[in-house]
């Protein structure tokens, strides 16, 4: 219960930011950061809680983005409906990829590879198919009205993405406290043991994949509405597959706030790197790569994990010998 209050508090604080900050540059940074946090929260459901590491989450981001864009641009459907359709399409893609991969029993390296392959296939198809605008991409016409999911002020976009992130946080929170979540975590820890306890591992992984894909697809749909442009390398490129996994890993896999913390840290590092060296391409991603290696080496449970460990360490130190003595006596 206290975690629900924490989500509320964090969201409230973040919602107040546009009152104090009026710089478009900063607001833009925050919007993009929250969008990445959303994509990362999606990955976190499958990878963090479920332990299935996808290297191709771009497949869902891009599908959400393209469906949102295509339905608007080619069929004139209302932008919010397109956004919802994008999420549904992302979820469906997740269901297909998950069904194929998990039924085939793919785990670990093989799973990472197959997700990578699916994302690549979609990227190639999108880069030549006429409906996606092929190499040129799709431009969404400017229509700065709320009913078209476009807003004249960045602050409005900021509040929308914040709302989406809040929903994702609550989904993670609910998952953690649910039976489905307990089963999912059990599958992550030891799939065979979980199955012996009555967990239908394939169904659970598939469910996680669908939720994960839907959330990341929402980030993709938002991207389209914010930037009003999408093409194959943006929609299905490795950049988003990497950032979607980087933020939860750095922030803390399998935690509610991990992706959000991770996104703030990663994006800040990226911006910091650019400030130091000017806008030379490559430096920000270089930093990401280095940080990923360092985090795995020294803090595999991420930033949130480090804090949780520190807190647990304090608690253990306050209740000293009891545990040690108890253990010796009971054996």
């Amino acid at each position, binding site marked *: 219960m206290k975690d629900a209050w924490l989500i509320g508090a964090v969201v409230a604080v973040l919602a107040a930011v546009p009152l104090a900050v009026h710089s478009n540059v900063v607001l833009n940074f925050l919007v993009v950061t929250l969008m990445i946090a959303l994509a990362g929260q999606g990955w976190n459901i499958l990878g963090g809680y479920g332990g299935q590491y996808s290297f191709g989450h771009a497949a869902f981001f891009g599908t959400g983005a393209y469906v949102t864009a295509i339905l608007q641009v080619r069929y004139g459907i209302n932008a919010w409906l397109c956004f919802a359709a994008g999420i549904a399409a992302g979820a469906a893609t997740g269901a297909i990829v998950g069904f194929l991969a998990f039924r085939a029993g793919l785990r670990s390296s093989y799973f990472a590879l197959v997700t990578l392959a699916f994302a690549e296939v979609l990227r190639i198809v999108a880069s030549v198919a006429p409906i996606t605008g092929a190499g040129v991409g799709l431009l969404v016409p400017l229509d700065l009205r709320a009913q078209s999911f476009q807003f004249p002020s960045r602050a409005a976009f900021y509040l929308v993405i914040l709302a989406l992130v809040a929903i994702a946080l609550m989904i993670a929170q609910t998952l953690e*406290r*649910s*039976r489905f979540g*307990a*089963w999912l*975590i*059990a599958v992550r*820890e*030891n799939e*065979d*043991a*979980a*199955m*012996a*306890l*009555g*967990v*239908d*591992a394939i169904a659970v992984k598939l469910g996680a994949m669908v939720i994960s894909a839907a959330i990341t697809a929402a980030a993709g749909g938002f991207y389209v509405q914010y930037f009003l442009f999408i093409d194959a390398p943006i929609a299905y490129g490795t950049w988003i597959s990497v950032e979607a996994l980087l933020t939860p890993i750095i922030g803390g896999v399998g935690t509610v706030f991990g992706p959000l913390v991770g996104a703030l840290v990663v994006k800040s590092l990226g911006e910091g790197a650019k400030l130091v060296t000017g806008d030379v391409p490559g430096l920000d991603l270089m930093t990401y790569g280095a940080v990923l290696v360092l985090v795995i080496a020294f803090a595999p449970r991420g930033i949130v994990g480090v804090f949780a460990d520190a807190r647990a360490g304090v608690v253990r130190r306050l209740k000293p010998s009891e*545990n040690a003595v*108890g*253990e010796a006596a*009971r*054996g």
Partner: protein
Amino acid sequence: MAEPLLSVENVSRRFGGLLALDAASLSAPAGRITALIGPNGAGKTTLFGVISGFLKPNAGKVRYGGEDVTGEPPYHLARRGIARTFQIVQPFAGLSVRENILVGAHLRHRARSSALAVADEVGRAVGLGDLLDRVASTLTVAARKRLELARALATEPKLLLLDEVLAGLNPSEIRDMLPVIRALCARGMAVLMIEHVMQAVMSLSEHVFVLAEGRIIAEGSPAQVAADPAVVEAYLGHGAAAKLKAAHVY
């Protein structure tokens, strides 16, 4: 007499060129402890794998509660009431003891609060009451064995498969575990245990099956089986029974 809860009929299982199980049959009635013994490599854990759905047999049937459940997946069998422990303990290492047992409890209890209550109760019943908050990876071997048992019990099984649950325990730990196991069939559970610790087999089980090289070579009460020359040979080698007899050992 009614059909026993578990009935394994002529199960065979091959791995490449190795015939691990050769038309093995056994049964385990409700409310009793049945033991499965045999020398190392006899195929006991393979048989458990078949019964619990982790392996499909090449031939033969597994009947449970009067129904043919051969080849059903493990989670299905768990829902029917078959629970097992693993020879090499498989805790959910990063989770606490309580969270470990919780996963088992969730099988029958959807709501977290009721599942937690069951988990606490089961944890206390096997003697882990003071360790409920400890992370599973920090437990001693004996505690992990109890955790393995607790998790399986939390699924409220009717048939419990125990795979060498006493292995690696020192004599006093074994002495502490025996009453816990004995209490299980008081609730009407059928227990089938693979065990090497003979004192446990003798004192706990009412019926014993002996598996050697994939075949059931003997069955009966513990005393009968212990006196069976074929069993002695299986453990001690060809001709051992005759030598022992000649030396008036039995």
